[in-house]
């Protein structure tokens, strides 16, 4: 048995204590130790963005963090981006409405990234939305519908009616 280190995290609002090997990546700690398999692991060197989670509210690559280094931190995964009643959160709902995913592998990283982005940018333009997701790769959609979903999620978060965020208009830009 290799030496382990105790880390205390708050994951999606619940306190979790873990005994992990120092080399345990946060992505693996979430998936294997906490069985939160919503966080996906793609490239494992920080390029693809699929594993993005929020650490104290800020998006970070979970594949580029050692779990031991986060003692005391609060982590939000895609499982934590749900609505309070357990249904789809605004970003998830917008991805659903705008058909912003196909295979869905990259989606958890987009949902976390966009959730944090919208907390600071209430009304992004299509260009802003594109910039906000520039660090996340998707091989299915061609991004048009994801850009539309970012704008739609902004509307849903604020209870605004559907307007600018029509996937068809996003696609023509």
């Amino acid at each position: 048995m290799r030496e382990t280190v105790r880390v205390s995290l708050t994951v999606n609002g619940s306190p979790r204590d873990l005994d992990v090997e120092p080399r345990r990546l946060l992505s693996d700690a979430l998936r294997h130790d906490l069985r939160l398999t919503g966080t996906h692991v793609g490239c494992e060197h920080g390029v693809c963005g699929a594993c993005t989670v929020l650490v104290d509210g800020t998006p970070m690559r979970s594949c580029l963090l050692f779990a031991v280094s986060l003692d005391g931190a609060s982590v939000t995964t895609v499982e934590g981006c749900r609505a309070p009643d357990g249904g789809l959160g605004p970003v998830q709902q917008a991805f659903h409405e705008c058909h912003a995913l196909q295979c869905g592998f990259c989606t958890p990283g987009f949902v976390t990234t966009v959730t944090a982005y919208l907390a600071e940018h209430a009304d992004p333009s299509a260009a802003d939305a594109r910039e906000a997701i520039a660090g996340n790769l998707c091989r299915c959609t061609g991004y048009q519908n994801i850009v539309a979903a970012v704008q739609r999620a902004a509307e849903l978060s604020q209870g605004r009616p559907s307007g600018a965020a029509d996937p068809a208009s996003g696609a023509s830009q």
Partner: protein
Amino acid sequence: MKPAPFAYHRPRSLAEALDMLADLGEEAKVLAGGQSLVPLMSMRLASPAHLVDLNQVPGLATVDVGAEGVRVGALARHSQVEHDTASYDALPLLRQALRQVAHPTIRNRGTTVGSLVHGDPAAEMPAVLMLLDGSVTLNDVNGTRDVAATAFFKGPMETDLRPGELAVGASFRRPPPGSGSAFVEVSRRHGDYAMCGVGALVTASEGALSAARVCLVGVGTRPVLLDLAPALGDGVVDDEASAALVDAAIDPETDIHATADYRRHLAHVLVRRALAEARTAAEARAA
């Protein structure tokens, strides 16, 4: 794609971190943001026996603006420096360059000092430190030393940091009044390391340039700092003279991202572009 096992150390003070680094010597690496070190470890290009984690050491996440310039502590994340308004007002080049370092998500964790110590020859912040006559402050159990940027970067991923030392901060100096800056680059994809990047710092008064310097990345084994004074005539940079200086100073290589010839081409285009933008910035600041 998993790091090899290592022993983990979590100092709670700077003194404790320095003691650990002194004890462990060459066996230890410092863990700052991990945005360069963790991928290297996952790919097994690095497998240090010990990691000394800075992240719980208080007092290092600082960005201080003074009369001399901007001083950045070891735990200041790229994004913290990028968004610091006082730093931007003092030294716009910091934000101009940081916006091109990776993606925001990487900048949320990676540190500016870590990128200096990492010493990637395509990285932006080493070039900024060179242009702004900066220095890195290195501490060990015996004391502290300041190393000028020109002496700090030695080769690809090679700096003047010695085993047992911790880079506690870096200082970027204010250029003379009337200065303007720019950082431009071309990369394969948004957020990638640049195939070639150029920072420029010029000083202008009443429309005439009195000084012009550029620093190029991605076209040598370390950032290439170039004083264009010999190419300055009548308050403008002579493009031909400047191109000759650039040609003589750079030594680009071919790799999977770009050929040496293409990098050389980029260097020329980007030097002109960076100088024009820096000049516009100098005029805007004067107005």
